[in-house]
Every structure is written in structure tokens, then in C-alpha cells.
């Protein structure tokens, strides 16, 4: 594992970040968008772990942060999905473009 330079891993996390971003911008299904956000969060997780492991191995700050992010992401997803389900009841669709009544 030490053989892998930090830049490679950061490249992965950055890629993940932008993939998530891309997904967020382009997917119209709300659940997919949620997943895209999870990708972003995961890229952050990788960042934290990597920084902790490679740069600041003295303390476990990064690792802890990651664990909290994972937990909170789960909570967030739960609420989000609940909301999406409720939205589906009224809109009969989970296409994000269909839920754009309020504007301007």
C-alpha cells in the first residue's frame, strides 16, 4: 500500500468527486442524483483517509471524520428518500424536471 503514491489516490478521489458532480448535473432521476451526492461524499471520505494516512498519521482525525460522514450520509439519504417517496405520491414521478413548479 505504501507503494501507491498519494497523488494516485487523490486522483481517484478527485475523479470520484467530478463523477458525482456530473451525475448530479445530468441525471434526472432523484434517486440517482442522491447516489451522485453519495459519490461526492465518498470522494471526501477517501480524501480524509488518505490525508490522515499519508500526511498526518499522528492523530486519527481524518478517520473519525470519515466515519461520521458515512453515518450522516445514511441519515441524509433516509430523509431524502422519505421525501422523494412523498413527492412521488403527489407528482407520480421522481423526475426532477417534473418537480419544478416554483420558479422565477
Amino acid at each position, binding site marked *: 500500500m505504501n507503494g501507491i503514491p498519494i497523488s494516485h489516490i487523490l486522483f481517484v478521489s478527485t475523479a470520484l468527486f467530478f463523477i458525482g458532480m456530473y451525475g*448530479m*448535473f445530468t441525471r434526472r432521476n432523484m434517486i440517482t*442524483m442522491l447516489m451522485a451526492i453519495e459519490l461526492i461524499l465518498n470522494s471526501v471520505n477517501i480524501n480524509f483517509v488518505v490525508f490522515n494516512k499519508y500526511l498526518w498519521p499522528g492523530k486519527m482525525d481524518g478517520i473519525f471524520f470519515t466515519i461520521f460522514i458515512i453515518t450522516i450520509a445514511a441519515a441524509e439519504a433516509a430523509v431524502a428518500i422519505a421525501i422523494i417517496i412523498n413527492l412521488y405520491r403527489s407528482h407520480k414521478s421522481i423526475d*426532477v*424536471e417534473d418537480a*419544478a*413548479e416554483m*420558479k422565477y
Partner: protein
Amino acid sequence: MNYSSYIALIPLLPLAGFVLLGLFGKKYFKTFSGTIGIFLLLASTVLALYTAYQYFFINGKVNDVYQSIIPVKYTWLQFSSGTSIDMGIILDPISVMMMVVVTFVSLMVHIFSLGYMKSEERFGTYYSFLSLFTFSMLGLVVASNIFQIYIFWELVGVSSYLLIGFYYDRPSAVAASKKAFVVTRFADLGFLIGILILAFEGGTLDFNTLIQRLTDTQSSQFISITTASFLGVSVLTWALTLVFIGGAGKSAMFPLHIWLPDAMEGPTPVSALIHAATMVVAGVYLVARLFPVFSINESSLHIVTWVGMFSALLAAIIACTQTDIKRVLAFSTMSQIGYMMFALGVAHKNGETGLGYTASMFHLFTHAFFKSLLFLCAGAIIHLVHSNEMQDMGGLRKFMPVTHLTFLIACLAIAGIPPFAGFFSKEEILLATYHANKIVYVIALFTSGLTAFYMFRLYFSIFWNKPKELHGHPHEGTFSMKFPLIILATGTMVAGFIPFGHYVSSDGKILETPFHLNFSIAPVLFALTGILLALWMYKKESNRPHRVASALGGLYHSAYKKFYMDEIYLFITKKIIFNLVGRPANWIDKNIVDGTMNGIAYSTAKISGWIKGIQSGKVQGYALYFFSGIILLVIVVLYLWK
């Protein structure tokens, strides 16, 4: 030199009359108003006469020179250490003379109005306005401070406005009063600027100090004002010309005379007041008051001379053609004032050369008598005939003998027939011009012939000619209307014998004005020619006037139309000022200035509309803006604006 402050009562009594009658006249005094006004003014007149006596015969002279005395003076408005507006009373020959004239003529008008305005609803108001007019004029003549004169100058203007517009429900009266005020206001603008220049250069507003500084060739003020120039003309000339413009406006000199004929819309006694003693002589008085300064500046004196000359001639020509008797009288006033003006213009400071000054003041004095007499007679006639037009009159001598006689006396006086007052003063003027300027002399002579002609044209048309049908029982007015006529006629007959040069002269010393028989032949001949011509044309009803008029053709017509001056003014005000200045100003305000403000509001709303698309309602769009916002901000913060 013990003038106590009773002198202040001379102007203040009429003021009291104005306040009293103005506030309570209508409600409490009613017809009693006239009596109150007359008594207050009578007191004033007596005081004025007493003052004149004191001044001329007891204590006015020091070393045979009449002094300028300032018995009363209060600081009214202090500007800076040197300049302040003071309310004071100055006593010198001309102011004392004017005080007498104003109070006396005004008293006659007051008395005359008692009968003339008897049936008028706003009797009290009328008298309060008359009092105001008298007060203003008195304040003007006694002014010791150049700004004081301006203040009362304006008050004279507004009094005339109120009186000319007295019959306010006649649109023509309203228009005339407005015209009089606006035209004189325009002239006052010149006066005001002139004052500002004089005050600035002289460092004072006080007449005596100002005159002393500006005539002393050694003083720094004199040097500065004569050497400094603007547009190639010395500042002194500018100042005096501007002051003269003010005077010309009030005195109805060409080309600011257009208000005068229209001013006849007011009650006739008011015209008497305006023409004989107050408003129109104010301009002459102003020039006389500043005469020491004028006399050191040739150019401004030339302007005075030529404007006076031209006005005198022009007015006389126009007067020959008018049919409204009051207008004829109005133009005759303008002509006579022209005489006074050019008499001043040809005068000089000292000794014999100052004859014009004395002559001018003398003429002013005598003119006050016969002109007020003429107007009051006209008032009596109009009272009887209920018309101003000559064609409605004729043969009136049977109905109104007193009026007839007094009118005749006045006509002879103004025509310059000895031994009436006008003869003496006019002869002095001609004498003065004869020595100074031959061209002026010739024109003046010709004008005096014209004067005689148009006055007797008036006289014959009214009292002789063919009698007109008059309904009812025509009879002369009440005693209160006849009494002033008689008094004034007496004055007209005797005033000429006053040795005026003993009292009023340009340098305060006695000026002998000998009578030259040889010299007076020419003017009298001219006058007689005019009278005979009038006799020939108007004594009996005939078509002679008509034939003469058509023979003169265009000249007659344009003189009848007052040389189209009104039309020119109308063109300038209506077309040029109104359309080319007022309308664009209004347009700019509505569209550009206001439009800019509205435009800002409008474009804000417009921008708000353009950018509404940002808020598309789509989450993905929001996220995109969010992310691009971050990127742009990073770029800006990192690279563009450190």
C-alpha cells in the same frame, strides 16, 4: 438743523392709512374710509409743506448751498460692515420738492375720488391702495439709501399693479396690470444689477457716501470703477445705464413704455396719480438723485438724452392718432417725461451748465399740476359720458363749465403758452438743450408743436365739435370732484412764476434763470401753429381729420398702432420666451430629468426581468450555478483580484 423725527410721519401716515383701511376698511369704515384716507394724507401734506418751508427758507442752506440732510436713519438690514440697507429720510432740494408734489397731488386725487368712486363696492380697498401708493412714492423720494429706493420702487410697482387691476373682473384690466408690473419688473432687473455694481464698487449703499466716493476723482473707488471695464465699456457706464434702464421702465421710456397706455384700465384718478406725481416720475427722480454720478459719465448721459428725446417724439406722434382720451394723455405724459429726461441728459454738474437739471425738475414740478389736472378732468368727463372714446364726446362745454375751463388751462399749460406753468419750464428745457445740443433742440421744438396739436385736438373734440346724445341729465360731478380741479388749475397758473433755480440746482447753489424774450418766440410760435391746426381740424365736425389721416397713410396707421410695439413684445414673449424657453424647459423636465429617474426605475425592473431565468425552478440548474459560482470565485480570488 433741528428736524425731529416728525418727518418720518410724512410717509408713515399714508402707511397707517393703508394698514387701517386695508384691514378694517371694508368691514368697519365702509364709506367713511375716504374721509380717513383724506385726513391722514392732509396731515401728511401739511407736514410736507412745513418741512419744505423749514428746509428752503430756514435751515436748508449752509454758505448759500443747499445741504443734504439725513434727519432719520435706521439700519434695516446689515450685510457687511460697510454695506447695509438703511431706512432713512434724506432732505435735499429735490426730495423736499417731490415730497410736496406727491402729497399735494395725492391729496387732490384722494379728494376727487371721493366723488368719482362713490358707488364703488370696494371703496375702502381703493383708498387703502391709494394710501399705499402714496406711501411708496414718499418712501421712494425720501430714500437716503440706494436700496431703500429700490424697495419703494418695487412697492410703487405693486401699488400700481393693484390699482391698475382694481377692476379685477375685467380681463383687460388684469392683463394691463400684469403687463405694467412685468415690464417694470424687467426694467427693475437692470436697476438691481446696477445697484449691485454701484454698491460693490462704492462699498456702500448710502447715497451721500456713494456719490461722494464716486465723484471724487482721487478716491480708490472712483479709479476702480472707471478703469475697470466689461465688454469694452467702463463699469461705471454699465452701472449707470442699468440704473437708467430701471428708471426708463418706471418712466415709460422707449422701448419700455408699452405698459403705459394699457395702464389706463385703472380708475381714472389713479392715472392722475401715476402720471403726475408717482410712478412715472420716479425714473426721472432716480436719474436726478444720482445726477452727480451721471454727470461725470458722458456716455450714460448721452443714453439718457437720446432715449428721452426719442421717447418724447415718438409719444407725441402716437398721441396725435389715438382716440381714447386717456391714452392720448398717457402718451402725452410719456412725451413730457421724455422732455425731463433729455433735459437731465444735457445738463452738467456746475453753474450755468446745470440748467438742464433745474429745468427738468421744474418741468416735473409744473407737469405734476397740469397733468393731474388733465387726468382729473378726463375722469370727470368719463364719469359723465361713461366712455373713454373721443367719438362719444363733443360739445361738452355746456354741461361742465368748470371742467371745461380747467381743462383749457391745463392744455394751454402743456402746450407751453405763457403765462401758464408749462411755458416756463419748457422754455428752460429748450434753453438748456439749445446750449448743449442743437439737434435735440430742434426735435424738442418740433415735439412741442406736436404737443400743442394733440392736446388741442383733444380739447376741441371733447368740448366743441358736434354735441353727442347723452342720456339722463348730464351734470358735473359733486363738489369734491370740482374742488381739486380748481385748486390744480390755480396751481397751474401760478407755478410757473416760482424762481425755481433759487431752490433746485445741480450744485445746490442759486441758479438765476433769466427770461429771454427772443428765445421764447420760437416755441410759442410752434405751439400756436399746433393749436391753430387743431382748431382747423376739430373745432367743427368735418372730414378734415380723415383726409389728413389718409394723406399721411402708412405713417398714420402705424402711429395709430403705436408703431407695433405691442405686437413685437407679444412676439418676443409669446413666441420666443414661451415657446423657445419655457416649453423646452418644461419638456426637458418632464422627459429628460424626470425621464432619467423613471428610466432608472424602469431599467431596474427590466434587468430584474432579464435575470429571472437564473431561478429556473430546477435543482440541477441550481447546483450548476452553485458549482460554477465556486469556480469563478476561486479564479477571481486567486488570480484576478489579489
